């Protein structure tokens, strides 16, 4: 049996197994910490920084930071709320997010987090980058306009599908998801691979299944993302 420790998040006592990350312990205790690049059962990416919490006053990514006995974690402070909102706004202006016709709209985690934060419009200037769509694969496509560089597909493909086909090229603001060899169609990716399900936005998508769920029935139409975690941990 692994050792159990306790710490607090916003004053609430949280039990955790030693070595467990803050985000997981929080989730099991019914506390939702916003996140984008984290995916259960995957090595954390530490990339989006939306999950940043204050650990004994210091900002740390909850998805990579292990819980430790007695630490004081703050998740809902006015500053964290603003900074997280700012990061989400950055993602919206960095890419080209045309929610109005995106197949993922309503089921998109980026959009859902923005809804949860009450963002009506990103406060930063849109960068309108020129980005490509890779439709070379018969069943799957990549729309780089929508990619938020969470590397969830890349990690999933490596760890779960055993296919190191996604990676990153360039650096800084020019960073881009890349596939090897050249195009998606030349890789051994299958539409049934776990990687395809890993995308939080509409960047890596199965073809011919868009708009399958009607408006009003989609994941985040009625309740904010994270509500399931909060409900499960706090039965009424």
């Amino acid at each position: 049996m692994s050792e159990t420790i306790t710490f607090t998040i916003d004053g609430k006592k949280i039990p955790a197994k030693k070595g467990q990350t803050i985000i997981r312990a929080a989730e099991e205790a019914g506390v939702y910490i916003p996140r984008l690049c984290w995916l259960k059962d995957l090595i954390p990416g530490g990339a989006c920084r939306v999950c940043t919490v204050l650990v004994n006053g210091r900002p740390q990514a909850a998805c990579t930071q292990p819980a430790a006995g007695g630490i004081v974690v703050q998740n809902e402070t006015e500053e964290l709320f603003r900074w997280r909102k700012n990061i989400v706004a950055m993602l919206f202006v960095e890419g080209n997010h045309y929610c109005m016709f995106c197949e993922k709209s309503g089921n998109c985690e980026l959009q859902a987090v923005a809804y949860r934060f009450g963002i009506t419009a990103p406060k930063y200037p849109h960068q309108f980058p020129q980005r490509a769509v890779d439709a070379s694969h018969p069943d799957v496509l990549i729309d780089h306009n929508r990619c938020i560089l969470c590397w969830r597909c890349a990690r999933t493909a490596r760890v779960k599908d055993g296919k190191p086909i996604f990676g990153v090229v360039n650096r800084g603001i020019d960073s881009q998801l890349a596939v090897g060899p050249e195009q998606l169609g030349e890789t051994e990716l299958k539409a049934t691979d776990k990687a395809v399900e890993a995308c939080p936005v509409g960047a890596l998508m199965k073809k011919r299944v868009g708009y399958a769920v009607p408006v009003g029935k989609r994941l985040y139409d009625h309740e904010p993302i994270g509500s399931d975690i909060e409900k499960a941990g706090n039965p009424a």
Partner: protein
Amino acid sequence: MAKPKIATTSLAGCFGCHMSVLDIDDRILQLVELVDFDKSPVDDIKKFSAHCAVGLIEGGCCNQENVKVLRDFRKNCDVLVSVGDCAIMGGIPAMRNGIPLQECLQEAYLKGPTVHNPSGQIPNDPELPLILDRVYPAHEVVKIDYHLPGCPPPADAIWEALVALLTDKPIKLPYPLLKYD
């Protein structure tokens, strides 16, 4: 006391947001109780007749005329609201951003796969407003006070926002009304 005035316009938009305004159904009757419409396609008033409390902007700026109208709205309205994704981030028209204008015109009028244009001309009448190098969200051209996202924003969202503005309350959209699609 005179009723406050509202003005609306559709810049580089599709009138969908205006349709959504009309979609508030019978509340439109309450609305005309509360306000008078000034310059707006709704009543076809072409020029501001007085200073307005609220201006609703649909669409971003894709040409010189849009900029002129938007600046006119800023001058004549106390509060400007970007209504809909096109006003907020350019929307579908902004998909041309990042493609040089010359290429856009060629594709639209000469080379596009569905183009039938035997004259081989790109429309260039002096009456036509010149197109901007890219589509600009409304707040990049003038200061915008509020944003109502959606394509179009739900009628209820528009209603909530208008009522809040006219009664001097902060706009607070309930979760299901904040949508980007």
